């Protein structure tokens, strides 16, 4: 992993193995091939997961377990481990693990990739596959009292869920002070101003120091995957991505679905639409990072008056632009498969000058944030060298986005796995080597500047685009029916990191399995690593610096 400045020749340094070489490496572990559109897929026995993953990790360099997808077929269960390389995310491989229909048990990958822990708990919760050697196989999204696995085939939706009161009893009702030890159990959330939504942190304290913190999620599990699986590709799925990461990052999320579905159905997007997409997506990124800054300052400084209001003010400006572009303030629903829904607002000149005005005042306000926040001595004392996340740990947990880049992991899908118009534009990937709360904030603030650069170039391009070539949508059939049994995993760089979609088509106009790889889900899993041994206020700072959105964590 290179810690030096971004270097475009990086792809040449990473040796790529052909699928046959990989098969040779895995040897008799492989029992079949099941290639996906994005990667070669190797079917292995359910008791060879650890061996396979560790060989691929240590010998072939696949060090990023991006996602674990679980699904049920008519005759079997299946877990898919989507592996990538942090150095070159275009090199992908899928490990397919079928499990018995009557007794779905498969080996856990947790020993090789820590990130598998939560992914497998989710698979157990929603699908019902059990993982051997898993350290802590419990439900993660649904309540402990839930009966059945809702995305499995035999789930009865009409059966009422009954929870007795003792199971819902207040965990703090008893006196939790143990006379033998000095530790204390503390609940933070699910309703707490510092948890950024409905997150529940089960914290064990020794005095003011945190011994163990366990995030308890699922308070906003809105069945996004079920919703997408019951919608048609062409129009019905697109509104939902807006609601995954709802901090104005709608267009970035829509792009994740658009990219996966366009590759699945083989749709070409016109260049003009790609430029509009790129511009809109970067506006969303600015808005999202502004709120991250605002809430972080609120968490760390308790500064509801200055920084928070300033940042909200800048967000209002971006939202105004996005409203002009898309017609909505927050839930844009602007992308369509094969392009965008409509062209830039008329009169175009007014939109361009409004955007330029925004870009002109942005350096000034960023300067102001640096004066207010990052140059503030109290703020620095609170954030520098707290919440340390070493790069190896970040990679092991599958952390991406500003969290990984704040730990010096030079990984940005916009550059490494280019899509849209990013590879035609001049911009840099921001990394910081501090690995602490401060670095993660700095990365976000500098990314705002990079996004502004991208928007400016897009505006220039759009302004000079010849009128007769303004093609906003490709010709896409009214009903899309991708071929039966095609599978794809595609990711984009959303505001919080790698946002990926796995889809399996079954020949109908709806996906048979729709799985979302949410960056916040993996990022949040690193919290115990950062917080254990620190003081309580540092846990809050670390959580703020992770910048999670519960809508995306729980989906």
């Amino acid at each position, binding site marked *: 992993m290179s810690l030096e400045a971004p270097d475009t020749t990086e792809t040449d340094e990473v040796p790529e193995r052909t699928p046959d070489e990989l098969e040779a490496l895995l040897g008799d572990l492989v029992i079949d091939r099941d290639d996906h559109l994005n990667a070669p897929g190797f079917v292995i026995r359910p008791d060879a997961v650890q061996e396979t993953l560790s060989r691929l990790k240590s010998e072939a360099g696949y060090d990023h377990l991006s996602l674990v997808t679980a699904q049920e077929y008519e005759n079997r269960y299946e877990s898919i481990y989507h592996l990538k390389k942090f150095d070159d995310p275009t090199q992908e491989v899928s490990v397919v693990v079928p499990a018995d229909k009557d007794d779905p048990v498969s080996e856990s990958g947790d020993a090789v990739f820590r990130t598998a822990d939560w992914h497998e708990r989710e698979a157990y919760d929603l699908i019902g596959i059990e993982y051997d050697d898993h350290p802590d196989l419990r439900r993660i999204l649904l*309540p402990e009292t839930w009966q059945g696995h809702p995305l499995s085939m035999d789930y009865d939706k009409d059966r009422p869920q009954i*929870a007795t*009161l003792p199971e819902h009893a207040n965990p703090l009702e008893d006196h939790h002070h143990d006379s033998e030890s000095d530790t204390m159990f503390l609940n933070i959330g699910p309703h707490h101003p510092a948890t950024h939504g*409905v997150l529940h942190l089960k914290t064990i304290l020794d005095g003011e120091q945190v011994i163990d913190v366990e995030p308890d999620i699922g*308070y906003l599990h809105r069945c996004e995957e079920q919703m997408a699986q019951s919608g048609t590709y062409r129009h019905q799925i697109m509104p939902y991505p807006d609601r995954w990461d709802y901090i104005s990052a709608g267009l970035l999320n829509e792009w994740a679905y658009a990219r996966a579905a366009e590759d699945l159905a083989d749709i070409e997007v016109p260049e003009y639409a790609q430029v509009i997409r790129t511009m809109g997506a970067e506006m969303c990124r600015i808005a999202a990072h502004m709120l991250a800054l605002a809430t972080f300052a609120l968490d760390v400084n308790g500064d509801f008056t200055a920084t928070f*209001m300033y940042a909200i003010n800048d967000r209002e400006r971006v939202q105004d632009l996005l409203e002009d572009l898309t017609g909505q303030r927050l839930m844009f629903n602007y992308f369509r498969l094969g392009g965008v829904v409509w062209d830039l607002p008329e009169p175009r000149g007014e939109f361009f000058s409004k955007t330029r005005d925004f870009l002109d005042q942005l350096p000034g306000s960023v300067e102001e944030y640096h004066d207010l926040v990052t140059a503030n001595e109290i703020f620095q004392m609170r954030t520098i060298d707290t919440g340390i996340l070493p790069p190896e740990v970040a990679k092991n947990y599958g952390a991406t986005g500003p969290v990984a880049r704040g730990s010096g992991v030079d990984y940005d899908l916009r550059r490494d796995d280019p899509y849209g118009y990013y590879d035609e534009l001049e911009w840099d990937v921001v990394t910081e080597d501090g690995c602490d709360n401060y670095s993660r904030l700095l990365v976000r603030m500098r990314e705002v500047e990079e996004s502004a650069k991208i928007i400016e170039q897009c505006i220039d391009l759009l302004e000079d685009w010849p009128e007769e070539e303004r093609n906003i949508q490709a010709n896409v059939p009214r009903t899309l029916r991708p071929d039966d049994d095609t599978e794809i995993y595609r990711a984009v760089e959303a505001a919080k990191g790698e946002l990926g979609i796995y889809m399996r088509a079954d020949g109908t106009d709806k996906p048979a399995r729709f799985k979302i790889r949410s960056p916040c889900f993996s990022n949040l899993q690193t919290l115990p690593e950062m917080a254990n041994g620190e003081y309580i206020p540092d846990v809050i700072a670390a959580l703020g610096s992770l910048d999670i959105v519960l809508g995306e964590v729980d989906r």
Partner: protein
Amino acid sequence: MSSDQPFITDESRVVTETRDSRMTGQGDRFNSRLREAFGSSPFILTKFDKFLNWCRGSSMFMLQFGIACCSIEMMHTYAVKHDLDRFGSGVPRASPRQADVMIVPGTIVSKFAPRMKRVYDQMPEPKFVVGMGSCTISGGPFQEGYNVIKGAEEVIPIDIHVPGCPPRPEALVYGVVKLQERIANGEAAPVTVKPYELEEFSDLEKDELVETLADQIDEDELVMRYNFADSP
């Protein structure tokens, strides 16, 4: 003292002038409807209830309570530009024990519903609830979800529904102002009496409704039932 500016002894003239200047001209910023009702006299005759309702409506402490997407628009409503505080209702309190109004901004799922009920129970009465967004009305776009409560009203009583996905800040402001109006007019029920309070604190006989409700409760094993099939 010069003779052309005599010392004013006529008190009624002073009072009249003060009132006039307040109701017109330079005293304009004091010229509220209340002042008009007061006139120059410092007394006002009203019913105590009416006065209290007016106070409640004019000074509401909101619970700082974020659930989902709508909470982002709610933050924008509190913050600059939209500034809910202009209407005397924009002080977010982090503790439910200090709040009068709870804005429910988002989708309620089965795991969160009991928690929200607990937060609501912790608020002192009189308390009011604004349901923000389609999810609190019916479950919104997620209504079909296996885990989604179909409307916040399944869990707690709601005074005002603001539709939208999410509602614009202007819509939320309108909803809150409507709630204030209702409270001031005494239309929103300020106090809800719980069945066990009836039993405990009143010498009234249990009426039929309370009786039937109480009969449904299995006292040893109180049960929370998410019946997604039967809810609307």
